[in-house]
């Protein structure tokens, strides 16, 4: 009978280990410097400076109207479609200022994808929804390649098994949670580098929400994800880093563990413990 000479190894039965910052990329993907944003004459963002490293999940939290969604939309210039907006400052993605004159906004939005609060699938088939980005950007050269990319995107969004038999049916026949995952698949199909999510689960029930959160956890291996959420527990569950906004200013950026156990700023602590907002 063999005698065990080594002490037994301790098995850590956690399939989702807490990931430290050193596992994520150390290169900064997005660097914002002194960003000021105006709706007409109203200043919505004041001197925001922040760095977002690659392949992490950063959550933006703050009370309603604090500017977190506005700031998110400056990262892919979606605010351009609103008339009368003005931007001062720099937003650097891979060290290129996206607000420099002559920037190709269409190309920017290919690299920085966005998922919205209320899912907005096109009134087309499931397949056509996911293929839309691929088609307009002429990413694939053959229909089999297109079908392959669509399938991969749906698998990445954890939706493939539920829809693989009905790709040609209307996207609007899916449930709310499925529609949102479809929108995520649609955004992922063109393989962006950064994924911006504006309260992606706020319109969903708890089970659908947890599916989306599970998805985000898997996606962060490949993508840099920025998620705006008004649900602090969601920020705590899902993100590596958290940024707290208030009245258009960035109050604090910290690792999520620190933010929720011992934040640096009193304002942050007051918000997190529910003293206001």
């Amino acid at each position, binding site marked *: 009978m063999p005698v065990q000479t080594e002490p037994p190894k301790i098995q850590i039965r956690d399939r989702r280990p807490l990931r430290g910052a050193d596992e994520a990329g150390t290169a900064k993907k997005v660097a914002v410097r002194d960003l000021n944003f105006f709706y007409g004459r109203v200043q919505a963002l004041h001197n925001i400076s922040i760095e977002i490293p690659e392949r992490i999940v950063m959550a933006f939290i703050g009370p309603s109207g604090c500017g977190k969604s506005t700031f998110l939309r400056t990262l892919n210039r979606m605010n351009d479609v609103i008339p009368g907006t003005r931007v001062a400052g720099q937003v650097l993605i891979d060290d290129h200022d996206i607000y420099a004159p002559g920037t190709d906004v269409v190309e920017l939005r290919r690299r920085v994808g966005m998922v919205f609060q209320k899912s907005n699938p096109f009134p087309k088939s499931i397949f056509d929804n996911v293929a839309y980005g691929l088609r307009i950007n002429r990413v694939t050269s053959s229909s089999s390649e297109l079908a392959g990319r669509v399938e991969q995107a749906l698998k990445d969004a954890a939706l493939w098994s539920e829809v693989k038999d009905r790709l040609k049916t209307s996207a609007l026949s899916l449930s709310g949670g499925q529609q949102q995952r479809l929108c995520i698949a649609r955004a992922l199909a063109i393989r962006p580098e950064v994924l911006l999510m504006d309260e992606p689960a706020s319109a969903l029930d708890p089970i659908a929400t947890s599916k989306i959160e599970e998805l985000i956890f898997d996606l962060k291996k490949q993508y840099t994800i920025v998620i705006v959420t008004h649900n602090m527990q969601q920020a705590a569950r899902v993100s590596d880093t958290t940024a707290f906004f208030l009245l258009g200013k960035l109050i604090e950026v910290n690792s999520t563990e620190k933010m*929720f156990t011992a934040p640096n700023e009193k304002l942050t602590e007051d918000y997190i413990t*529910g003293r206001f907002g």
Partner: protein
Amino acid sequence: MDLHRHLDDELSSLRDRVLLLGGEAEQALERAMYALTERDSEVAREVLDHDDQVDHLEVEIDRQCIDIMALRQPAARDLRFVISVAKMAPVLERIADHACNIARTAIDLNNEPELKSVLDLSRMAEHALKMLRAALDAFTSNDAVTARQVIESDTEINDLYNHTFHRLIELMVTEPATATRDARLLFVAKHLERIGDYVTDICELTVYMAEAAFIKHSN
């Protein structure tokens, strides 16, 4: 904001409860030592009878901590407070248990003739009580500085223990007639030394609560 008023009320009530438990532990130790030094078995028995209430209080605190965590999801400062209380309650209950052990020893010793060596233990007990009071005060006022000082003063108790230990061993060798009684006193000394360690734990928790710093096992 209605919701956080509930949270504040619950945190206050939790604080009151844990301070009550602290007071119970203090009182148990004080009275157990009184029973020992003044040879009053009646007081000792009261300490033993009262221990049920102390245990009950600890369980209540435990339950309340879990409820607050589940229902209010406290964060940051509030979270550190609740966790510290949850860890502190069993420590206080064990201090009270040690006090009970001292009370039992007092009853046994009171049936036998008086011993001189009891007085050394009084000094240890004084010190332990002082430490406990200081620790509870520091907890109440979120005072990490005082808490650290109390941790330092644990060395005094350890020194007193070592001194008493050697004295009692000496006595047991030189005066075998009182050996059994001396042995019992040795156990009392050990209980007091353990209480000193527990008070250190309480201070470490206070430092964590106030500064979010883990200083456990750092020495």
